[in-house]
């Protein structure tokens, strides 16, 4: 389970999980889940196009996801953001289907672009994945404060010289890069799960932003590690485990938050009741 091909799988999936945990935290904060869904779709079309003209899949992923990010940011300034994002998905998926109809790739390769092929990552692919991962984390840490300010109070940020459009473009390009490195590993559909679930679960456990981001990384790592192990042992597809464990951690987070709220409010109710009793007697 930890040798050769499997070792590369563990390494690449861990890098993807760390980046997805950090970037996902801001996706939750900014409410940009729809863009996080759209960009991997665009990236998928890019990979299909790349295989058609015979260049490296990562190049196609990068070009299309970054183009998608810039288009969403540009259109979103004038039109409604969700409509702009939806249009980008539709155009990208349309292109993807065109490229696929023209390509001679076998179905399993397309399947792996959509649902990931963590065991298919070669050690030569590991290097670009690691480099893009480091760039994404460094960029996230660099813009942490202005991005936080702009996500929480865009008007105030604007008045302090932190432009909303600039922050939006920077953030979407980071999401696009995350997508680029993640699609070969976990697939266009399942990176969405890693970008959303861990961060959403983490915010139930803590009030502190930086702790929530760290927790989001840990949950993402736990998700992919257990998914790989379970997939290896059960011979079921890894995507099934990523998706269901992700949803499971979120449910656990909500349950925890609900339990804590109940516990916090119970003494207050009891106090109120005893005061009432005193008044009656």
């Amino acid at each position, binding site marked *: 389970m930890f040798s050769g091909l499997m070792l590369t799988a563990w390494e690449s999936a861990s890098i993807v999980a760390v980046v997805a945990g950090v970037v996902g935290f801001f996706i939750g*904060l900014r*409410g940009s889940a729809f863009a996080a869904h759209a960009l991997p779709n665009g990236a998928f079309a890019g990979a299909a196009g790349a295989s058609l003209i015979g260049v490296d899949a990562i190049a196609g992923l990068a070009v299309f996801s970054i183009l998608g990010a810039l288009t969403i940011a540009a259109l979103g300034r004038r039109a409604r953001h969700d409509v702009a994002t939806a249009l980008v998905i539709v155009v990208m998926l349309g292109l993807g289907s065109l490229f696929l109809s023209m390509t001679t790739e076998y179905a399993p390769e397309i399947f792996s672009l959509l649902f990931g092929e963590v065991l298919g990552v070669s050690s030569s692919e590991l290097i670009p994945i690691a480099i893009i991962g480091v760039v994404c984390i460094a960029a996230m*840490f*660099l*813009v*942490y*404060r*202005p991005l*936080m*300010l702009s996500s*929480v*109070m865009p*008007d*105030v*940020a*604007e*008045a*302090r*010289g*932190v432009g909303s459009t600039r922050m939006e473009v920077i953030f979407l390009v980071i999401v696009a890069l995350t997508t680029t490195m993640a699609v070969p590993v976990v697939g266009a559909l399942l990176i969405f799960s890693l970008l959303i679930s861990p961060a959403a679960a*983490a*915010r139930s456990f*803590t*009030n*502190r*932003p*930086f*702790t*929530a981001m760290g927790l989001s990384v840990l949950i993402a790592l736990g998700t992919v590690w257990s998914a790989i192990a379970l997939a290896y042992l059960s011979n079921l597809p890894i995507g099934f485990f990523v998706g269901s464990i992700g949803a499971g951690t979120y449910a656990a987070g909500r349950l925890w938050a609900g339990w804590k709220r109940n516990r916090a409010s119970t003494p207050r109710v009891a106090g109120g009741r005893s005061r009432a009793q005193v008044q009656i007697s």
Partner: protein
Amino acid sequence: MQGRAVDGSDEILAVDGVSVTLSGREILRDVTFHINAGEFTGLIGSNGAGKTTLIRVILGLITPSSGTVRVESGSRGHPLIGYVPQRITLDPDMPLRARDLVGLGIDGQRFGLPLPSATRRKQVDEMLDAVDATRFADSRVGNLSGGEQQRILIAHAIISHPRLLLLDEPLANLDIGSEQEVVDLLARIAREQRIAVLISTHDMNPLLPVMDRIVYVANGRIATGTTAEVVSSESLTKLYGVHVDVIHVHNRILVVAGRREEALQHGGSESIVELV
């Protein structure tokens, strides 16, 4: 205010002859007023009168078609203007404590991670204490009540020691109790920290006890001076261009437009419109 220096060195904000035209429509015409350090100024006008536009011009987010805005420069590149915008919605699920939001007021525009430091923590604690928010400092900011959030936003705006604090309708959606608390807090900040406070509202009554100066906006123009000078039948009739009555009832001021004779004849209030 009596006994307060009104010389040039004490002047924080100078708006001179500002006109604003947005997509062909004239929003503000020849607006001129000055504000001094420590002064509490109410920017009064009905909804749509141009209050938010004027605030955005002062913030430098809208360029006026003519006229100038000058804000007194402070020391060492501090943000000079503290700003609390209108209607902020903060997600209750957001993992962000009240103290985190106040901390962003110190260095939110800077790059890099916020490194924990004892000085920074002390500064945030003192600010939370100054706005009476220590009690809920560690709660999620999205879970706080409107009045509590307003106090946190004010702390965020003034922690970097601006000379001017702009607030856009900070009293909207507050219950009467928290309204009074926020007004008292702002008056105390203006007095103790010598910050010029400019607060926009469509209801001037909560501000009457603390207001040093009024900037009354109507029809894209303004009238400015003390409350007694501006809020009079004569001065507002001139500003609105229709007959306006100023009625004092129980320490409150009602501003109504309409022709009194007509209203009496009809025995109804159809032609009387409450303006602010």
